[in-house]
C-alpha cells in the first residue's frame, strides 16, 4: 500500500478539525458537536486500523517502518528543520490503541457529560487532546513529539479545571501543569543536546528518531561530556525527567491524584490510558539513549519505588477514583520498571494492556458515580464507605469492573497477567543476576501483591456486602443497558482477555505466519532498539523532501529474531526456568492479594479498622501521601519560593528603584538645590545684585555731591581747606 502524508496525516487532522469546527458550533449546536467529535475520532480509528492491519498482517516484521518528512522551515545552510511521520510497529499499535480506546471513551462521554451545560466544550477539548496524542504517536522527531506533548498538557490543564466554578479544580489543574512542566523543560534540554550531537556527527542538526539512532550507532555520544557529566547520561536523564513528569513517577507523582478533579472520562482518557502513558512511550523511543547513558538501573529504581509507593497509598483511599488514580501511578511504575530491567517489549505491552483495562475501570467508576446522586448536596457520590451492594443495581458495570480488576491483578488468562508477568519475570532474572536490581525486584513483587489486594478491596466495598447508605442505594436507578454507557465498557472488557496479546488464539501470531516459530506476535513485532538492532540505522541518510522512506520488510532469518536474546543455550534455559518461577510467583501473589481482600471485606475475619489503629503512624503517613504535597507546597513553595520572590521584588522596588534610582535623582536634586542656592545667593544676590547695589550706592553718594548748589560747593571747599590747614598746624 502506498503511504503518503496525505493519507496518514488525517489521523491527526480529523480530531483537530473537529476541534476547530466544534469551537464555532459548540454554542449553537452542542449535540451536533458531540456527534461530530465522535465521528472524527472513529475516522481516525479506521485509518489507524488500516495501518495496523497492514503492519501486522502484511508486513510481519519488526524492521518495517514508514518514514516521511517535510521541511517545516529552513533558516539557511546550517539550519533546516524537518518534521515528519514515523510509523513502526510500536507506533502502529499505539495509534490503534489511542484511537480505539479514545473513541470508546468519547462515546461514553456522550452519556456521562450529555447533561452538562458545557457538554460541547468538553467534547472539543477531548478531541484536541486526542489529536495531540495521535500526533505524539506519529511523530518522527522529538520536536513535534514535544509540541504535541505540550498540547496534551494544555488539554489536560483545561479538562482538569473543567468545573471552574469551584476552587479545587483550579488548584489541581495548575498543579498538574506545573509539575509536568518541570519534567518538560528538561525534555526540551534533551532536545538541545540531540540537536547539537547530530550537528556534530552529520553536519546538519536533526531531531528525528532515526537520526538519533544513527548517531548512537555511530558512537556520536561517546566520550562527550557536558558540565562534567557524560553527554549520553545527561541526555538520558533529561528525557527521563520528561517521563517522570508526564507519567507521574516518583518524585513528581503528586499531580495525578489531584487530576481526578476532572470529569471521569477525562481521567480515563488522559490520566489513565494515553497521556500519562506517553511518558513511558518517550522512554521507549529514546531507549538507546538511556542504555548508552547507563541509566537503566536508575530507571528501574524509579519505576519500582513508584509502583510500590503508589500501591501502598492506594490501600487507604476511600474515594473510588483516588484508588484508581494511585493504581495508575503504580502501573506506570511497572512500565518504567519494565524499561529499567530491559524488557522493552513487555513495558510496551503493559502500556497497551493497562490502557485498555484502566480506561474500562475508570469508565465503570464513572458509571457508578453518575448513578449515585446525593439528594441532599445535589452532587454525585464517590466515597466508597457510602456504597456497598451495588452489583444488584448495576449488574453490567459490576461485571466489567470485576473482569478488569482480574486483569489488573494479574490473574491468568487476562491481559494484565501476560504483560505484568513478563516484567516481573525479567525483574526476577535481573535481580538474581545482579544484586543491584534486587530491590526493584522485591518492590515489584510486593507492589503486585498490593495491587490485587486494593483492587478487590475496591470491588468488595463498592459492589458487595450490604448497602452502607440505604437512602443513596434506594435512590439509585437499576441499570438499563444503553449503547453509550455499557457498550464501551463491554468492548473494552473484551480486550482485557490475555489471548489478544499472547497470541494463544492462533498459537503464535494474530494470524499464522510462516517462518516464525515459538514467538508471540507482540514479541516478534516490537523489538528493542539495542545496540544490535541499531546497526541498521548506521548508514541511514535522511531523505529529501517528498520522498517516502519506507523500509521494505527485509527477509528475516531466525537468528534475527533470536528468542534467546543472544544468550547461550544453557543461559537461555536458566532464564526460561526463572521466567517460569516468576510466572508461578506472580499467579500466587495475585490470588493471595484477592484472598486477603476477601478475608478483610467479605468474610470480615480481618478487621481493617484494627490495622488502621494499630499502625496509625503508617496509616497517617499513607493518608498524607508520604507528606510529599506538604513538603513541596508548604515548605518548598510557600516557605522558600514565595519568601525568595517577595525578597527579590522588595529589593527591586524597595531598594534598587527607591534608593538607588530615585536616590540618584535625589542626589541630583540635592546638587541642583545647592547650585541654585549658590546661584541665588552668591552669584545673583551678592554678585549681580551686589554690583547693582554698589553702583546704586555710589550713585547716591555722587549724586548727592553733585547737587548743583553753589553754596554747598563753597561749604565743601571751606571744609576741605579748613581741614587741610588744621592738619598743617598739627604737623
Amino acid at each position, binding site marked *: 500500500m502506498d503511504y503518503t502524508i496525505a493519507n496518514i496525516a488525517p489521523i491527526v487532522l480529523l480530531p483537530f478539525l473537529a476541534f476547530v469546527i466544534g469551537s464555532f458550533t459548540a454554542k449553537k449546536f452542542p449535540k451536533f458537536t458531540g456527534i461530530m467529535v465522535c465521528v472524527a475520532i472513529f475516522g481516525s480509528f479506521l485509518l489507524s486500523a488500516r495501518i495496523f492491519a497492514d503492519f501486522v498482517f502484511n508486513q510481519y516484521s519488526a524492521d518495517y517502518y514508514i518514514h516521511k518528512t517535510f521541511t517545516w522551515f529552513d*533558516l539557511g545552510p546550517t539550519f533546516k528543520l524537518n518534521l515528519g511521520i514515523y510509523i513502526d510497529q510500536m507506533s502502529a499499535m499505539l495509534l490503534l490503541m489511542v484511537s480505539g480506546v479514545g473513541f470508546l471513551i468519547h462515546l461514553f462521554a456522550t452519556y456521562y457529560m450529555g447533561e452538562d451545560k458545557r457538554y460541547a466544550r468538553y467534547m472539543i477539548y477531548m478531541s484536541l487532546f486526542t489529536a495531540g496524542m495521535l500526533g505524539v504517536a506519529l511523530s518522527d522527531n522529538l520536536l513535534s513529539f514535544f509540541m504535541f506533548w505540550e498540547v496534551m498538557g494544555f488539554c489536560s490543564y*483545561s479538562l482538569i479545571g473543567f468545573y471552574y*466554578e469551584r476552587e479545587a479544580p483550579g488548584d489541581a489543574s495548575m498543579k498538574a501543569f506545573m509539575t509536568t512542566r518541570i519534567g518538560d523543560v528538561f525534555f*526540551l534540554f534533551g*532536545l538541545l543536546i540531540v540537536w547539537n550531537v547530530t550537528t556534530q556527527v552529520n553536519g546538519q542538526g536533526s531531531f528525528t528518531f532515526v537520526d538519533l539512532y544513527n548517531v548512537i550507532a555511530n558512537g556520536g555520544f561517546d566520550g562527550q561530556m557536558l558540565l562534567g557529566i557524560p553527554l549520553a547520561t545527561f541526555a538520558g536523564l533529561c528525557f527521563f525527567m520528561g517521563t517522570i513528569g508526564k507519567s507521574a513517577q516518583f518524585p513528581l507523582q503528586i499531580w495525578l491524584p489531584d487530576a481526578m478533579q476532572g470529569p471521569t472520562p477525562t481521567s480515563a482518557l488522559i490520566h489513565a490510558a494515553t497521556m500519562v502513558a506517553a511518558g513511558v512511550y518517550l522512554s521507549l523511543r529514546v531507549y538507546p539513549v538511556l542504555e548508552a547513558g547507563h541509566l537503566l538501573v536508575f530507571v528501574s529504581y524509579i519505576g519500582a519505588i513508584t509502583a510500590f509507593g503508589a500501591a501502598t497509598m492506594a490501600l487507604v483511599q476511600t474515594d473510588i477514583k483516588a484508588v484508581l488514580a494511585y493504581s495508575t501511578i503504580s502501573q506506570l511504575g511497572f512500565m518504567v520498571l519494565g524499561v529499567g530491567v530491559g524488557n522493552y517489549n513487555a513495558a510496551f505491552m503493559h502500556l497497551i494492556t493497562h490502557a485498555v483495562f484502566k480506561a474500562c475501570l475508570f469508565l465503570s467508576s464513572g458509571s457508578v458515580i453518575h448513578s449515585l446522586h446525593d439528594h441532599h448536596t445535589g452532587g454525585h457520590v464517590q466515597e466508597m464507605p457510602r456504597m456497598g451492594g451495588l452489583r444488584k443495581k448495576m449488574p453490567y458495570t459490576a461485571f466489567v469492573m470485576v473482569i478488569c480488576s482480574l486483569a489488573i491483578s494479574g490473574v491468568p488468562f487476562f491481559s494484565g497477567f501476560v504483560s505484568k508477568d513478563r516484567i516481573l519475570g525479567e525483574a526476577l532474572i535481573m535481580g538474581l543476576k545482579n544484586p543491584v536490581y534486587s530491590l526493584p525486584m522485591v518492590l515489584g513483587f510486593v507492589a503486585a501483591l498490593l495491587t490485587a489486594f486494593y483492587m478487590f478491596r475496591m470491588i468488595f466495598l463498592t459492589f458487595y456486602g450490604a448497602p452502607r447508605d440505604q437512602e443513596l442505594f434506594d435512590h439509585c436507578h437499576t441499570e438499563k443497558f444503553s449503547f453509550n454507557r455499557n457498550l464501551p465498557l463491554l468492548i473494552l472488557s473484551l480486550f482485557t482477555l490475555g489471548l489478544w496479546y499472547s497470541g494463544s488464539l492462533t498459537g503464535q501470531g494474530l494470524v499464522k505466519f510462516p517462518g516464525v516459530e515459538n514467538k508471540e506476535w507482540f514479541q516478534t513485532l516490537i523489538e528493542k532498539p539495542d545496540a544490535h538492532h541499531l546497526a541498521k540505522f548506521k548508514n541511514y541518510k535522511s531523505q529529501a523532501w517528498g520522498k517516502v522512506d519506507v523500509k521494505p520488510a527485509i527477509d528475516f532469518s531466525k537468528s534475527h529474531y533470536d528468542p534467546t536474546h543472544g544468550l547461550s543455550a544453557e543461559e537461555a534455559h536458566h532464564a526460561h526456568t526463572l521466567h517460569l518461577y516468576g510466572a508461578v510467583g506472580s499467579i500466587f501473589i495475585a490470588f493471595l492479594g484477592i484472598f486477603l481482600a476477601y478475608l478483610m471485606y467479605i468474610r470480615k475475619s480481618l478487621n481493617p479498622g484494627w490495622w488502621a489503629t494499630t499502625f496509625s503512624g503508617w496509616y497517617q503517613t499513607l493518608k498524607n501521601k508520604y507528606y510529599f504535597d506538604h513538603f513541596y507546597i508548604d515548605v518548598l513553595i510557600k516557605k522558600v519560593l514565595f519568601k525568595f520572590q517577595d525578597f527579590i521584588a522588595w529589593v527591586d522596588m524597595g531598594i534598587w528603584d527607591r534608593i538607588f534610582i530615585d536616590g540618584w535623582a535625589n542626589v541630583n536634586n540635592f546638587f541642583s538645590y545647592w547650585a541654585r542656592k549658590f546661584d541665588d545667593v552668591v552669584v545673583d544676590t551678592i554678585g549681580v545684585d551686589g554690583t547693582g547695589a554698589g553702583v546704586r550706592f555710589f550713585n547716591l553718594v555722587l549724586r548727592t555731591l553733585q547737587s548743583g548748589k553753589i553754596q554747598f560747593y563753597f561749604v565743601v571747599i571751606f571744609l576741605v581747606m579748613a581741614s587741610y590747614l588744621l592738619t598743617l598746624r598739627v604737623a
Partner: protein
Amino acid sequence: MHGLLNYILWLPILGSLLILLIPKEKVNAIRWFTVAVTTVTFILCCILYVNFDQAVPGIQPFTAVSMPWIKSFNIYYKLGIDGISLPMVWINGLLFLICSFSSFDIKKMHKGYFSLLLMLQGSIFGVFMSLDFFLFYVFWEVMLLPMFFLIGIWGGDNREYAAIKFFLYTFFGSVLMLLAIIALYFAAEGRLGAETFDMVKLMGGHFADLKLSLFGMDLPFDKVFFAMLFVGFAIKVPIFPFHTWLPHAHVQAPTAVSVILAGVLLKMGTYGFLRISYPIFPQAGHYFGDFIAWLGLVNIIYGALCAMAQTDVKKLIAYSSVSHMGFVMLGIAAMTTEGMNGAVLQMFNHGLSTAMMFLLIGILYERSHHRWIVTPEGKKGFGGLYAQMPKYSIIFIIGLFASLGLPGLSGFISEALVFIGVFKPYPTIALLGLIGLVLGAAYLLWMFKRMFFGEIIDSCKEYADVNKREMFYMAPLCFLVIFLGIYPLPILDVMKTSVGKLVIDLAKFAP
C-alpha cells in the same frame, strides 16, 4: 513603489497635525479619523510586506530613499528596510491600528491624545527605517515626547512620577548614544575617508584598533563606545539593572500606550543592538558576548521572580516583559543563526502576545477600575471571572499560553530557536534558562488561577463580557498568535536572509 517608506513614515505625522484642525467637540470624528489614518498606514505596511524580496540580504533596494538633509555635516535623510526591520515596521502598523480602536475608551482630551498617538507611530516608524545615524537619533528623541505626554496626561494616579522617570531614564541613555554618534562621526574621517553618519558605511568593524585617549589613559575606542551604546539600548530593552522605569511606566500608562510600550518600544532597544551596536562594533560584541548572555539570563529569572511577587496584574505583565526580553538578549548574545533568528522572531512574537495581555487587562480595567489580584487589604480583587466572562476568558487563555510559550502558539518557536542557538556557546546558561520557563508558567498560571477560578466574587458580578468592538480588535491577534505558532514562515522567511547575513558578518570577527 519608490518612496513607499516616505508615505508610511509621514502619513501618521501628517495625520497627527490634521487632527488638530478637527473641532474638539467632534470626538467621533477624531476617533474615526485616527482609525482611517492607521488603517491606510497598515495597508501600506502590508504592501511593503508583499513587495519584500526575501532573497535580498541587507537593505531592500526598492525601499531605499536617500537625499541630503544638512549637507555641511554630511547628514542625509536616508531610509530603507531589511528583514530585521520589516517585522517591526509591520507590527508597528498593526498594533497602532488595534490601539486606535482600543483608545475609544479614552475619557478626556481626545484631540490631543489621538494626535500624540499618531505622532508616536510616525516617530517609531522613523526609528525602524532610518539608515542615517543622525536621523535615527532624531526620531529616537522625538518618540520620547508624545510618550511623555501620553503617560503624563492620560495615565493613572501616579502618572507624573512615572512619566518623568521614563523620560529622564531614557534621555540619560540617549545622551550616551549621542556621544557615541559624534565619536563615530569623527572617527569615520580617519577610517573611511570622510565624516559620516551613514550606518551602512559605518558597519563592518572598522574601529577595532582605534584608541581613545581619556584622562591620560589609552582606552579601546570600540569597547568604550559599544558600552555607551549598550547602556543607551539596555535602558530601552530594558536589561537588568536598568529596568525599573518599566513597571512604573506600564502601570501608569493608558492601555493603548502600554500596548505600544511593550509591543514595539522595547524592541527598539534590541533593534539597536542588531542594527547598530553589533554591526558597527563586531569585535566588541564578541568581547562582551558572555557578559550580555549572562545579563540576559539574569533578566529572564529576575524578571520572572519579580513577576511572581506582584499583586497588580499590569505590573505582573510588565515584569514578564522584562523576563521575555531576556530571551531576545540571550539569542542575540549567542550570535548563532538559530539564536539570532529566534531573537528577532521573539521580538515579533512577544509584541503580539504581550499586546494581547495588556489589551485584555485594559478591557478588564474598563469594568473593574482596579487591577489588584489581591487588594492591598488582602482581599481577592477578582474571582470567578471564568464563569462571569467566558468569551473573555478564552481570549485570555490564548494570550496567556502564547506568553508562556505553549507549542502551537507563537511564543514557543522563538523560545525554542533561542535555546537551540544558545546551547552551543553557552550550555550552562541554556540549562539555567529552563528555570525561567518553569517560573514563566508559574506566575501566569497562578495569576490565572486566582482571577478566573472559583466562585464569582461580589464585585465581579456586574462585569459584562467582551463587546463587539473589543472582540473585533482582539480577534486578529488571537488568529495571528495561533497561525504563526503553527506556520511561522511568513515572518521567518522575510527575516532569515538578513539575519543570516548579519550572523555571517559577525562570525568573521570572532576571536
